């Protein structure tokens, strides 16, 4: 086998067990050295491609799927309630029957995420900071110029089909969540919303819509103001 063919085939697959290659290497010291060096380099490349995997990635992948399933189940439950209510109507109980219709409102999805907040918070030692949040905010063309507080987690999540950045902070008024959404997806959001446990506000900033959610009665204004002052968008 000529030198060029040999080198080509070794480069194509340094781990080759092709008898022709092995025989050529056994017969020629130069080829043997080339095969040895290429295999050594390949081994180092294999080690190099094993880059560190973000901590808790498996946990987050399972969490995001659970959150989605939770939302689907909620919709199904509403459907059953709807059927029950319709039956009640049919048998003549017509006064003040509350028919719950399936909700596709983003704020409901945000509240569901906050309800499941505990699951998102990793066990221990997981640190995030402004630069990490900014790396993720870059996909919205946004950046935070100042600290907005003690950030615990920043993670992409899906509110129905809308990709959102969910940031969880520790504030003097307890844990709060910030959701950053593309402007077009968030235009239907009401200025304020809530349920029995949480309440939230939403506001627009240039190219995005932001939701801030905290416990019912918590003062959302300080965080809202910090966000408005700190978030900047690229041109």
């Amino acid at each position, binding site marked *: 086998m000529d030198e060029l063919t040999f080198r080509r085939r070794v480069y194509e697959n340094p781990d080759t067990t092709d008898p022709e290659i092995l025989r050529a290497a056994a017969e020629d010291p130069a080829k043997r050295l080339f095969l040895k060096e290429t295999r050594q380099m390949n081994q180092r*490349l294999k080690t*190099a491609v*094993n880059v560190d*995997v973000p901590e808790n990635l498996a946990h987050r*992948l399972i969490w995001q799927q659970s959150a989605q399933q939770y939302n689907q189940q909620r919709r199904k439950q509403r459907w059953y309630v709807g059927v029950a209510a319709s039956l009640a109507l049919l048998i003549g109980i017509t006064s003040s029957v509350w028919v719950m219709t399936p909700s596709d409102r983003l704020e409901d999805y945000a509240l569901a995420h906050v309800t499941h907040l505990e699951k998102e918070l990793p066990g221990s030692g997981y640190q995030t900071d402004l630069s*990490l949040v900014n*790396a993720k905010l*870059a996909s919205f*063309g946004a950046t935070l110029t100042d600290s907005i507080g003690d950030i615990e987690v920043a993670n*992409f999540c899906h509110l129905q089909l809308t990709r959102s950045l969910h940031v969880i902070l520790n504030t003097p008024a307890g844990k709060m969540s910030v959701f950053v959404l593309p402007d077009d997806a968030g235009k239907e959001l009401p200025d304020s919303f809530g349920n029995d446990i949480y309440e939230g506000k939403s506001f627009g900033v240039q190219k995005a819509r932001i939701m801030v959610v905290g416990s019912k009665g918590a003062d959302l204004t300080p965080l809202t103001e910090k966000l408005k002052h700190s978030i900047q968008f690229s041109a």
Partner: protein
Amino acid sequence: MKEKQQRYEALVHAFHADIYRYAYFLTREASIAEDIVQETFLRAWRSLDKLKDEKAAKSWLITILRRENARRFEKKQLDTVNIDEHEIADHTFESQDNLDSADLQRLISKLSEPYREPLILQLLFGFSGEEIAQELGLNKNTVMTRLFRARSQLKEILSKQYHPGGKQNG
């Protein structure tokens, strides 16, 4: 539903690390890689019933991931600068023997995608030429040529940036 949940969790535990690594070399940006891995597994969950053979799971996930990556370019919504590409131009290695994994990662990232992708499939998943060809929708000869060129280019970059004898030339 419980069975589907268990299948999904097994899939996550078995493949998330290598799928993330593949995404990392495809996108060359850790936060984007993480993002598309999340999208990939979310899609995998939604269509898990379509996966009939667990043995095919790895290449099934790779296919979903590649589609997610392509979608990223369709959206054209990303506004990020690839730091690594700028960094490597000025990077020299004092000795080939002292190359650490970070140097080699930078080297691999410098390869253009048609060469980088088959090489990663071979290094990370141990795929054969046929398997890479099937995954990328190319013929085997093209794949073999790209693998050969990928390694030739690595060698070339190294010899350009390698200063024999350490600092004496620099």
